[in-house]
């Protein structure tokens, strides 16, 4: 499961998710307002927060489909960096 920073960052990019609404792992983030520019902004925020840089196949709109997919991608990059 993801950490609090991730939860807060992702939530702040989902304008249609009610404040008390659950951020389910398989939530369709597009349906909750994560559009193209939102993805760009979230990407930069995640990179700055976790001190990582996403490249290659991770840089795809598919990576930002659900919180679970996104967290998995981040976790793999962080593991690879250790």
């Amino acid at each position, binding site marked *: 499961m993801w950490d609090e920073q991730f939860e807060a960052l992702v939530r702040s990019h989902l304008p249609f998710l009610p404040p008390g609404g659950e951020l389910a792992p398989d939530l369709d983030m597009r349906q909750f307002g994560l559009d193209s520019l939102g993805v*760009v902004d979230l990407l930069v925020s995640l990179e700055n927060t976790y001190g990582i840089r996403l490249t290659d196949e991770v840089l*795809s*709109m598919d990576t930002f489909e659900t919180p679970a997919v996104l967290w998995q991608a981040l976790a793999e990059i962080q593991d690879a960096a250790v």
Partner: protein
Amino acid sequence: MFPGMGPSGYADLGKFIVTDPRARQLRRAADRVLGYHLMDLYRAAGPDYSEYSQVAFLITCLALADRAGHGLAADPVAVAGPSFGGKVALAYCGVLPFAETVLLTVRLARCEEEYFRSEHRDVVTQSVARTPEPVLREVLDGMTERHEWHDISCRIDEDFHMVSMREPNLDRFLRDVRAAGGLPLYAMRPPMHSPAFGALRRKAEDEVLGDLPLAAPRMPIVADHDGAEVVTPGDVRRMLLDGIVRAVHWPRTVRTLRALGVTQICVSGPDSLFSRVRCTTDNFDVIPVSPRTALRPVPAP
């Protein structure tokens, strides 16, 4: 500012058009000139760039501008309309009456549809973020070396572009962009704004725009490809035709607006692009007026 058009289905704009009084009025006027019930056909169309979606987008933007006009502290000094927004600017600035703008929109849509039915069928326009021009240039140089045709169709920000190319070359392009740290977003079909579409420019001039009587805009329209101030009917005609073959260059439009003393932009229409990129938000106070903000319930006093 009237935004460029994204895919706009009935679910996006339908509710606003049937409930907003000004939009309803414009829709009735559009029905009269089109000879069909716009909303019936719009509802049945997909979330794409059909002529119905284009007229619905036009109506939405103009009705929102009307709303915005009532709430603004000052009168606008200039209008910008990147890509499709240029057509909305015509009606707003009095270059064409609304009914004529509807006809122009539909005729141009049909002209483009007919053209792309047989020409450039394999061309797509891909948007890429986080690609400053030197980075993108390297990727494009690789395409040039491989003799793969490409054009930058839109510069939205210093690091945000749209590139047109043949579809079979798209995968390699996406791979190279990602390897350079760029983020590919979405592909548009049909493509627009490329020097390769000279025949479409001629067709649009011959069949739609050539002798259409245009008036001078009541305030300058800032051209989306070079940032020039469009003030005469001839300028307007050139802007519309050149828009087919010249890339949109939003940072140039921003520079002209700044030079005109603009500090605040009211964005009349659904937009998730031009009003949100850094070169816009760094330079202006942005007031979005979208169907979503317009339909939001007003709290009781």
